[in-house]
């Protein structure tokens, strides 16, 4: 029984990041990269994966070191750990995928200041075991990558008529240029949040309705 409860808890830690506590749509964290590099699907995916690497590795390190890190300087320590992994990712991308690295530019370095990563260290990794922290980090970064793709895919389709660089509509398509420019990012995220609000409101109303039906 406790095994079942245990694995349920693990699944819960992983799944909450995907939907219920989705970092971008629900907590509205990590907005800067979410808008800045989502003009194409490939960039969104690369950013999502780079963030995944940084979040998972720093969560492992922080949860391993949690009893060693002095409380007063914990934030600084987290930031230094995160910055180290971001430097690693920066050099890795520059070495193996110079095209993507050039496209993302300074925004890879700016993963350091993604509030999502620091937030997870402070709220989760510094209080939980390594295993749970890995699950939490994986779930959160999956949620982040999912959100990035949710923004990136429609922006690329509308703005340049292609998906992952493959043209979808042929030459007759008039691209909606504004979607790949900065305002498009704001609009897309704004409308997605609107959709999320609508969904949340509807499911709340349904639950309420169900409750009243059951009680009467």
């Amino acid at each position, binding site marked *: 029984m406790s095994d079942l409860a245990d694995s349920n808890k693990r699944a819960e830690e992983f799944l909450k990041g995907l939907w219920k506590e989705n970092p971008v749509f629900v907590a509205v*964290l990590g907005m800067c990269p979410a808008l800045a590099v989502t003009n194409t699907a490939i960039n969104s995916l690369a950013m999502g994966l780079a963030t995944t690497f940084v979040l998972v590795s720093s969560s492992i390190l922080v949860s391993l070191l949690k009893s060693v890190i002095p409380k007063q300087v914990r934030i600084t320590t987290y930031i230094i750990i995160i910055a180290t992994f*971001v430097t690693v990712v920066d050099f890795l991308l520059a070495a193996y995928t110079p095209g993507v690295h050039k496209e993302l530019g300074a925004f890879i370095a700016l993963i350091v*200041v993604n509030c999502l990563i620091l937030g997870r260290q402070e709220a989760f990794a510094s209080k939980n075991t390594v295993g749970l922290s890995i699950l939490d980090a994986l779930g959160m970064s999956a949620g982040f990558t999912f959100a990035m793709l949710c923004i990136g895919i429609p922006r690329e389709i509308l703005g340049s008529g292609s998906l992952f660089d493959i043209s979808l509509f042929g030459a007759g398509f008039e691209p909606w240029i504004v979607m790949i420019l900065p305002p498009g990012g704001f609009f897309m995220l*704004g409308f997605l949040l609107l959709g999320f609000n609508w969904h949340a409101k509807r499911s709340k109303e349904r639950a309420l309705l169900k409750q009243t039906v059951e009680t009467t």
Partner: protein
Amino acid sequence: MDNLIWIFISALLINNFTLSYFLGLCPFLGVSSKLETAFRLGLANIFVMLITAVCSYVLNTWVLIYAPYLRLISFIIVIASSVQFVEMALKKLSPDLFRALGIFLPLITTNCAILGLALFSTNKGYGFVEGMVYALGAGGGVTLALVLLAGIREETRVLNIPNLMQGTALNLIIAGILSMAFMGFAGLFST
């Protein structure tokens, strides 16, 4: 001199940090409900940016040529300590302002606009004076965007907005329209 003016205008309007690079969005959406607080946060931003520009120049000239891989870590530490400095100075000099900015002042540490400034001015190879002008322009741009959004949000309070629309979704769409307006400045350079 011409060059410096262009750097300033470019950072202030054309490549506005908030509206076209999406840097510093957390305070942009979080502290923009009141015009005055937004303006003060903007000023704090300019101040930290100027300090950052000095620090990054010093680091770039004397430290990082020997150890380029330390760039990110050393920038972060320098910025974090400079924010601490602003915080302490503010607490002493103007407790009112300190209370008004509240939780968001320490958050400037993890503000991408600040780190972005250090990285961009390094990438562009700016010298000391150019770096300071760039910081001033960028800080001014962030303040401008904050004040504009706060002004519009204050107006929306008296409007009848559907429940669904309120909050971040509306702010983002307002920001999108502002950003579209700022795109109009893009032609300034080609003339």
